[in-house]
């Protein structure tokens, strides 16, 4: 293999000037936005509709932290993130009947459905997991997103230990127990999916007979 071409210090300096120019031009527009002013704008800009009430724009501690991209990059922010993870972990409940694995056929249907929880959804609409929106799961399903990692062969690759069962259960229930600003919704925390639905999604991932593990 050829060694890297040597780049002169001058070029590095020029590159960093150009890079910081982007930051500088942004900062010309910088003006402080007070929490009070922002919160006022949010509260005056929304109304309740259908099942979507105004409680949805009142942020909890997790949402407040993860909305503050600047603070997250500081030492204090990183510390707060660990605290938030602990708080989320503490709310997770293990299955009431002790079963981690349900029915994978039903799990696939839940993973496919992106329905529910919007203001056009009736209260009775069964909320889906929307899993394929972000993940590859069964390789046969070509229409999948890439916001989350592929879950193909999830159990096959990792084994079927009790630790993995618990970890996966926790992750689906409340992903922010492991990553404070994970993009994945907290399915149990906000009562989006029922215990049975989560057991079925678990089966999709961790039943050795599931198509995902073939």
């Amino acid at each position, binding site marked *: *293999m050829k060694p890297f071409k040597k780049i002169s210090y001058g070029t590095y300096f020029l590159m960093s000037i150009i890079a910081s120019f982007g930051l500088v031009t942004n900062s*010309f*527009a*910088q*003006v*402080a*936005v007070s929490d009070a*002013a*922002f919160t006022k*704008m*949010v509260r*005056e*800009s*929304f*109304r*309740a*509709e259908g099942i*979507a*009430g*105004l409680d*949805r*724009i*009142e*942020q909890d501690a*997790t*949402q407040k932290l*993860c*909305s*503050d*991209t600047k603070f997250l990059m500081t030492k204090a922010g990183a510390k707060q993130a660990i605290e938030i993870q602990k708080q989320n972990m503490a709310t997770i409940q293990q299955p009431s009947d002790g079963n981690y694995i349900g029915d994978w056929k039903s799990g696939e249907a839940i993973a496919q459905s992106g329905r529910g*929880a*919007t*203001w*056009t959804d009736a209260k009775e609409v069964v909320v889906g997991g929307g899993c*394929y*929106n*972000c993940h590859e799961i069964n390789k046969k399903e*070509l*229409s*999948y*997103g*890439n*916001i989350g990692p592929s879950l193909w062969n999830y159990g096959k690759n990792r084994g079927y230990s009790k630790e993995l069962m618990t970890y996966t259960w926790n992750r689906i229930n409340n992903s*922010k127990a492991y990553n404070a600003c994970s*993009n994945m*919704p*907290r399915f149990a925390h*906000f*009562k*989006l999916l029922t215990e049975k639905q989560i057991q079925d999604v678990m089966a999709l991932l961790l039943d050795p007979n599931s198509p995902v593990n073939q």
Partner: protein
Amino acid sequence: MKLRPIHFQRYLTCVALVFFTLNTQAQSTADEIAKYREMIADGNPSELYEMAGEELWKKPAGPKNATLEKCDLGMGPGIVDGAAARLPKYFKDTNRVQDLESRLMTCMETLQGISAQSVIDAKFGVGPKKDMDAIVAYVVTHSKGSKVNVSVKHPKEKMMYEMGKRAFNFQGGPYDFSCASCHSIPGRRIRLQDLPDITTPEGAISGWGYWPAYRVSSGQFWTMQQRINDCLRQQRLPFPIYGSDFTIALSMYMAQNANGGIIQTPGLKR
């Protein structure tokens, strides 16, 4: 297993080939979609809305029985050419930053006597909102091909941009979604729908420069306000009030990020 140097090189070539093939597959799909878009660009039903909008601009309406021909969209009364490219902007007469829809509501109210509230309350695509769709189509067509040219000078414009950045990152609702959840990293997609990274100029113009647009899948013309409305619905947030500051702030954030990019509206979407 220890890899001997020569096997490692072959391995790298294999990986590179596979990656290249996958990439070219993805690229040829993207090319085909671009070809399809070019084919259907002729006969964009947005033109029907634009025609209707031009008529509404020139037709006397409302209790004052006046036209919109004196409406000041930021470049002086009645000037439509290039106006949309400069919005949102600060307006002295209302002392606030306004996007196209809220500025049109101001004009409808002051010139024609049509209450802004009646437009806000109407359902999308019905009555006053249907008229609004057409007028928006008309106005944005007159900025097609221009560069986004949104001012950052006025303190309220600066403030609106910062509010918009904060609104973009605002996590809420039972899914903890913010705009950033989907639109802040390149190469993301939901199912097979590519998501522009709106924090960058290229991503911002692909969104800001293409809406309002005619959506083939629903046969509807959507203004930017309606597009933002549906995003917030899918984020599982409550209903954003039409023309509210939160929506204008988001528009300001997107528009400024898109500054210098070419406007393609009215667009044609799947």
